[in-house]
């Protein structure tokens, strides 16, 4: 009986802890649906500089909140997505982009996998198409045949 109670208590605690881990709540008012969707998309694409494995949408850190606010204001000013991304990159570096831009620095990142796959395909093709050993080469020469016969007859 006591054990059951303890178990229930444990469950309640476990769930209450889960509830405490809520994602950040901001109250931004958007006049149109498109801006709202753009805001949501950008907060997902931009990375929080402080907590490096979270995007702006998912982070509770003060800097993420500041950047969300800045993002909101830039959207209200009618800035284009590309302008907003440049604004962030100018200040926090390429690092803030979860989807890095294609540049000489990121060629390996973008094209490396494709190159590796092509390389793999080429290697497979080369191996498969390599000419099988010709049958005539497998035939023993007269000398070899004699040697073999000798061995067999030795018994």
């Amino acid at each position, binding site marked *: 009986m006591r054990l059951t109670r303890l178990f229930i208590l444990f469950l309640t605690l476990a769930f209450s802890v889960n509830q405490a881990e809520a994602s950040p709540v901001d109250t931004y008012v958007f006049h149109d649906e498109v801006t709202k969707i753009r805001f949501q998309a950008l907060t997902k694409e931009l990375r929080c*500089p*402080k907590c*490096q494995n979270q995007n702006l949408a998912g982070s509770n850190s*003060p*800097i993420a909140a*500041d*950047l969300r606010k*800045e993002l909101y204001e830039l959207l209200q000013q009618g800035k284009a997505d590309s302008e907003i991304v440049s604004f962030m*990159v*100018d*200040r*926090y*570096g*390429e*690092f803030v982009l979860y989807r890095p831009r294609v540049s000489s620095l990121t060629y390996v990142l973008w094209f490396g996998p494709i190159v590796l796959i092509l390389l793999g395909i080429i290697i497979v093709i080369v191996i498969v198409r390599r000419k099988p050993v010709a049958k005539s080469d497998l035939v023993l020469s007269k000398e070899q045949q004699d040697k073999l016969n000798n061995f067999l007859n030795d018994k």
Partner: protein
Amino acid sequence: MGKLIRFLPLILVIALGVVLYRGLSLNPQDMPSALVGKTMPDFSLKTLKDNEQVGTQADLKGDIVLVNVWATWCPTCKYEHPYLVDIAKDPQVKLYGLNYKDDRAAAQQWLEHYEDPYVFSIFDDEGTLGLDLGVYGAPETFVIDHHGIIRKRFAGAIDTRVWRREFEPLIAQLIEEKKQGK
């Protein structure tokens, strides 16, 4: 040739291992600032001590400048404070403070209670200059050369070891550049 190809996978795996092993010891927080090589962003903000006085980027020009981002809510800032007091004694660099997202009274009290190492501190309670500088926490320290160009950004506390390793060579180089009139 044929033998070499046989060892190629082994060589590749070892090379990959070396690269990945090196990755383990890199500090992911150690990021170059996007602003290194650019001029100090324009700003016009009140100073911490005097609400009437305005500090701008023009005030920083002409000297080798350190801008230290600090706040009373930041425990690491307290740790590095004595080292900043020491650094401020060097006549060849000028140390300015950027009081970042702080409470004015608390910050003023901090400077009174401890020593004030800064020529002056800019009061940036909304973090606007902080945002332009790409600041994401405190303490951070920027090195700006005599042309007003940001040469280095360092995130984290300064102490004697960090100063010797991270700052001293650069400061010496900047002093030399300034002497030569570059």
